[in-house]
């Protein structure tokens, strides 16, 4: 590990100087580079085994199939023989609603947290921090009873409300941290021009906050798309299942149909990977999520 730390300033050829000692240094540096390359290649290969296994099994012919080699028929069969398309639809509806509502709630609250300079605001900020660290299992049981009385158990709207509630704390912090980076002089100029506080929030601040909004949206997306605990407690009927419950339902049979479950697993991991690939920079921030806990 220590061979790695300092490579920045030390190793590599020194610019503008030539001669034997430096050439030797640069050879050593080059050899070091390839050793490190080999090391990280090996680590990456081992780390990715479970993901590669998922993809390979998804395109391997199933036990009853006549195909050989590579096939896409698992995807066809999982969608025609199970409720996969319903589950996918349920997951998409729940996740997209969560993202929209979570940002709509967190952005204004984050703005107040960022601009407010009173004890109440910092108290609220502490309250959010404490709440986000609470185990969701504590609130799940009382919410189950509350929602049962309101017909929100086994219901996608009930699920969405809980997702919004549980993303909202971190999302508010993320938005507040982003607003902190926007100079208040922008708003002051718009106030002098006769803009209301709300008007300058939407027209000046929010309009300049796309990266913050994207990171927050990605965080909410990941939480809602991946959740299993809330889903297993609140969802009962197979036609209301989200994808995680759908994937798990394969294991209740005696003989797990691995090629089908892996096809569905690939479908489930694609959206996060696409978002990750497309929004890499914001994704890191959203994936870190609570890194602003230090605010």
């Amino acid at each position, binding site marked *: 590990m*220590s061979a790695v*730390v*300092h*490579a*920045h300033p030390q190793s590599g050829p020194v610019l503008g100087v030539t001669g034997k000692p430096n050439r030797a240094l640069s050879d050593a540096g080059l050899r070091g*580079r*390839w050793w*490190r390359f080999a*090391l*990280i*290649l090996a*680590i*990456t290969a081992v780390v*990715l085994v*479970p*993901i590669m*296994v998922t993809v390979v099994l998804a395109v391997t012919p199933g036990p009853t199939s006549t195909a050989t080699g590579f096939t896409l028929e698992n995807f066809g069969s999982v969608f025609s023989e199970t409720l996969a398309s319903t589950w996918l639809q349920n997951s998409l509806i729940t996740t997209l609603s969560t993202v929209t509502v979570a940002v*709509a*709630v967190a952005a*204004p609250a984050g703005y*107040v947290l960022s601009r*407010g300079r*009173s004890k109440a605001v910092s*108290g609220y900020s*502490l309250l959010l921090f*404490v*709440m986000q*660290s*609470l*185990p969701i299992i*504590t609130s799940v*049981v*009382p*919410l189950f009873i*509350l929602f*049962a009385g309101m017909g929100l158990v086994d219901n996608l709207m009930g699920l969405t*409300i809980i997702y919004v509630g549980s993303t*909202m704390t971190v999302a508010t912090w993320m938005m507040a941290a982003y607003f902190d980076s926007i100079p208040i002089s922008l708003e*002051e100029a718009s106030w002098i021009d006769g803009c209301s*506080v*709300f008007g300058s*929030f939407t027209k000046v601040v929010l309009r300049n906050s796309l990266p913050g909004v994207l990171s927050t949206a990605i965080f909410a997306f990941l939480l809602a798309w991946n959740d*299993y*605990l809330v889903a297993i*407690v609140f969802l009962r009927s197979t036609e209301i299942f989200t994808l*995680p419950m759908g994937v*798990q339902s394969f*294991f209740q049979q005696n003989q797990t149909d*691995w090629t089908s479950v*892996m096809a569905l*697993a690939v479908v*489930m*991991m694609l959206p*996060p*990977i696409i978002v*990750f690939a497309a929004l890499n920079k914001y994704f890191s921030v959203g*994936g*870190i999520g609570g890194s602003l*806990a*230090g605010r």
Partner: protein
Amino acid sequence: MALTTAQTGLSRARRGVAPGGSGKPANRKSKLSSQTRKTFFWLLLPSVVLLVLIHGYPLVYAGVQATHDGSLLDTGEFVGLENFANVLSSEAFWKAARFTLLFTIVGVFGSWLLGLGLALLLRTKIPAGGLFKVLLLLPWVVPVVVSSTAWNWLVGTPDSLIPSIFRNLGLGTPLFLADPTLAAITVMVFKVWISFPFMMMMTSAALASVDTTVYEAASMDGASRWQQFSQLTLPLIARSTYISWILMTIFCVNDFPTIYLLTGGGPVDATTSLVVLAYRTVFQDFQTGPGVAIAFLMTITLVVVSVILYRQIRKSSVE
């Protein structure tokens, strides 16, 4: 408790929240701040309502449930602290608490060491370094339901791929999910596998903000590579390291799917954490009171720990 806190928070927000001092004429400022107060109240309202509904109310009601002998259907009789006494004197609770502690320690420091090592490695010049950085984040990106399925296929039964490899190498057939000790180790390795990319991201971000000229100065002063690492790099990224430890501690203690999806808490409760135990007590044994009491004890511990840590980070950020 949380309900009243939220309400006082609300009334405080109503009373006076104003944007930071901007040095405007007094009359203008007072007009602005009264308008501001009203706007800030409305901006904060949805967030407060949700906090009360999804966090405050359940916390209060959990307190009620924990002191009653009810079920999911009715509240039952008030039994005082009997549930807590029963839970605290049960062996299952302490077994789960010990596993949770071990799981958290291994999860936090295992993923941190691996993440730190990789972040340091990726900071140096490596062919295709950017590609590796992206690929290594995948365990964090892929949903746990998907990765647990893959891990199940790899190690789940004696005929799975990895036990077969062990057998063919003449190393016997390890029962990764059926042997209590091995199952506990497997779950922790799985958790480290999921979490190290998070630590790598956090550490990379912190390392990127370190000024490299300090290393030049240090190497001129004859500091060894290890000294540079332990006396420069680590202290310079300390704040970010503490934050990542805290977050990972919360993630590990509250973790449900990683454990439940791989082992279901078994074999013979060897991998039952407090969250899994609370879930089973409520939804499989239908004992709401004791189940909520377990969750409550966890909650109290986490609240105390996170308030203390929050204060400490605040302090370190002021310095």
